[in-house]
């Protein structure tokens, strides 16, 4: 643990996290953005979700790996099926939880 006051670190972290969070909301939104910009931004959610999902499923102990993630990867199949058919986030989360718990009993 370094000697700096932990509360100062928290304050510094809060500042650099909250400014990029709040600033665009306050500055933008009154006027619609240019249509090109809006089209570009419409792909941001899909991009972020898939990037985070990939690191959840295929990274094990800091490295890209299938080994160690078998249950996670296999459980993605039923949860993705449910996600596409039922279109309900909660149901696909629960499917995932149950699948992983069952897979761990088998694997």
């Amino acid at each position, binding site marked *: 643990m370094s000697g700096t006051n932990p509360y100062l670190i*928290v304050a510094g972290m809060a500042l650099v*996290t909250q400014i990029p969070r709040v600033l665009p909301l306050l500055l933008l939104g009154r006027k619609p953005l240019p249509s090109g910009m809006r089209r570009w931004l419409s792909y941001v959610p899909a991009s972020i979700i898939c990037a985070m999902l990939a690191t959840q499923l295929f990274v094990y102990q800091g490295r890209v790996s299938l080994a160690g993630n078998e249950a996670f990867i296999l459980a993605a199949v039923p949860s993705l099926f449910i996600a596409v058919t039922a279109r*309900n986030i909660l149901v696909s989360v629960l499917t995932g939880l149950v699948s992983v718990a069952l897979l761990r009993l088998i694997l």
Partner: protein
Amino acid sequence: MRATSHSIFALRRPQLIRIPRYLLAALPICLAYLPIAFAFGVSAHNSGFPFAATVAMSLFVYAGCSQMIAVGLLAAGQPASVVILTTFLVNLRLLLLGTAIAERLGHWPVLRKTLFGLQHTDETFAALSAEGARVPLSQNRTLNFQSVIHASWVIGTILGYQLSGMVLDVKAFGLDYALPGMLIGLAGLMLRTRIQLVVGLSSACIALLAVALGQATGGVLLAAICGPTLGYWLERECQAPTPT
């Protein structure tokens, strides 16, 4: 109306017990956040970070990935400047999320916009985006939705810090799959067009490539810049009249 029928706040069928819709919408994200916040609480405790500062971090920083990194860096004896700079770089993508959602709260009062921003995360952004990019957000429902999720983050942190001595096996219930499960659910809602699918797959590859090259912290940000650029370009190419 297509957009509202797919709203994350939409009710599927009549209910006997009236559960507020924002609670139902928040539940999967809370389920995902609790074990992660718990893990953060445990590692903060183990690296000797004070309890009050740990809770303050979950309250005021509220960014899972960088909180975990910060505690790790501090435990490794890194100076505060490195911790804060890393936090800044990891969280730059929040600028992008805010820009993407700003239009949907254009009519909100400034104070409520600020409140929204302070509790805006990748996951709430993704869930709210599933409604469709142009649907205006209802103020109370959205703020309640985000507050419940933030509360689960803080509660998870407190539990993790206080119970860090006890061995609690979240794996036995598959609870560690809550976050991937939720992302899969969101992907199923959002990847509806071929271009979206291509953007998603290439963003996934970029993020993994970054991890393989040892640049895990910047990977999602890099993907969030390259992916939409590819989507924008593909959309323009597909719409362009074929040259004769």
